[in-house]
């Protein structure tokens, strides 16, 4: 089985972001960037499938500016075999990302495409589902367990009512949730080794995909701030405040 994994470079999830005062967006200059956490789980899942002899080759792809090479290197250090950067400086919408990935699927013919369930910058949660549609493959989103059973995959998904298990014939598209696995930290020797693995850079503009945005972003604003509250000294006071809230709800 050949696996394609899509990884995105985003503002590190521990960074407290700042919204620019002019409404033009979120400040990203001088901010620590790293691999989107959900993508790490996708890479780990691919590497585990390779380690158990169920996958032969792992190709990792990222779409973005040149420094996105860093997240590809991280994936290579974790155990992926080769990397592709589709370079672009333009911020792309999820539909354009999915179309570029679909072109790559046409070239690479992976049996399985693994993605994160969501990128923690735009919080879209789109690309896996879109890619599945564009390549006419079955999908399993929000995966917390992946098992290969013959020519099919059995994937357990985290859904609003609990969990559900789907059977998907290959080729298929799966998006990773956080409980899928524990991503490994690449050791220094693995990082050194990653530098000698093949990594090609191609221009996103060369794929014949219309990359123009469809939506017009008007402005980005900070959310309304909550007014700071207070601490109470006694349990009785705390309980009375809860009771008062409940009474108010019942009165409405």
């Amino acid at each position: 089985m050949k696996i394609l994994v899509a990884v995105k470079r985003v503002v590190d999830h521990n960074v407290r972001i700042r919204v620019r005062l002019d409404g033009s967006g979120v400040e990203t200059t001088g901010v620590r960037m790293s691999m989107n956490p959900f993508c790490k789980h996708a890479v780990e899942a691919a590497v585990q499938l390779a380690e158990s002899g169920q996958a032969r080759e792992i190709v990792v792809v990222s779409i973005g500016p040149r420094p996105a090479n860093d997240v590809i290197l991280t994936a290579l250090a974790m155990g992926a075999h080769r990397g592709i950067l589709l370079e672009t400086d333009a911020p792309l919408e999820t539909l354009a990302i999915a179309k570029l990935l679909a072109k790559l699927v046409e070239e690479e013919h992976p049996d399985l495409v693994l993605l994160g369930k969501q990128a923690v910058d735009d919080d879209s949660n789109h690309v896996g589902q879109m890619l599945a549609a564009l390549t006419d493959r079955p999908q399993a989103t929000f995966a917390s367990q992946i098992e290969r059973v013959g020519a099919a995959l059995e994937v357990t998904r985290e859904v609003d009512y609990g969990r559900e298990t789907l059977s998907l014939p290959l080729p298929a598209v799966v998006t990773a949730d956080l409980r899928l696995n524990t991503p490994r930290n690449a050791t220094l020797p693995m990082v050194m080794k990653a530098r000698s693995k093949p990594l090609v850079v191609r221009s996103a503009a060369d794929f014949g995909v219309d990359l123009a945005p469809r939506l017009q972003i008007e402005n980005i604003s900070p959310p309304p701030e909550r007014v700071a509250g207070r601490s109470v000294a006694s349990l009785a006071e705390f309980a009375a405040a809860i009771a008062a809230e409940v009474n108010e709800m019942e009165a409405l």
Partner: protein
Amino acid sequence: MSVLLLADHDRGELAPATARLVAAAGGLGPVDLLVVADDPAPIAAAAATLAGVRKVLAVQGPTTAEALANTLERCAKGYQSVSASASSTGKDVIPRLAAKLDIMPVTDIVAIAGPNRFVRPIYAGNALETLTDPQPLHLLTFRASAFRPVAGGNAAPIESLDFSIASAAKLLAAHRTQTDTPDLATAQIVIGGGVSVGSAEGFQLIEKLGKTLGAAVGATRAAVDAGYAPNDWQIGQTGKIIAPDLYIAIGISGALQHLAGIQGARKIFAINTDPEAPLVKLADLALIGDLFEIVPQLIAELDRLSLASRTG
């Protein structure tokens, strides 16, 4: 502009959040609800009672993303918007359908700012994006918690549609959490427990407090990862988004990914040993102390208070 809205359901019952989604979609134009289920009739009957619903379409069929996207596609003709909840189903289906139709979707909408202007949170709710969607068809998901529910009392007509829908993916098994607590996404009061609750037994204490108040129970990712609470209790960026009148956070630090799920709460109360915890700082009211001492006493005190108010 008319809207086709996909209705969520579970165990043969219409999702309680549907009344809020009808309100949201109703902000754009007349709403037709689509029910796809093994046995759609009883769900469609409940859907038809919601105020503002023009008609209900009932389809018998599978509910994998492929099947739902295909069904929606077949029903979409004549509508200017195809919408769903930003639930695990809506998130699964709407982007798939959007790509099939070559439309860029707008998801997790928390406010409608005009006929084709929407507001959605990004960066775990730490920023709000206002955008215009100039496309001829709008593919949308709404966050139910951000909208007030419509009333009942309607008797919209129900139309049964018959077509067979194929899906390569097959549902093998559903694993449901056994619980009798109210629906998290629509509950008026929610109690949340963090990893410091320490065990599944510890969560029974949180549930007991929940029962005392008729509240739903939620958890942090750390508590779910530790196996103390089921995954569908997780509140936050990657869990459920809640908007209760009162949220009581017990032993929760207030990581930004957790805060992403509770920004819509009207009041936030916190119990924590650490006065410097972000959630304590953000709470309307906080009690500093050990949850294992406080929660049993709190249950007793609330029992006493409600008894007093009933007899008094």
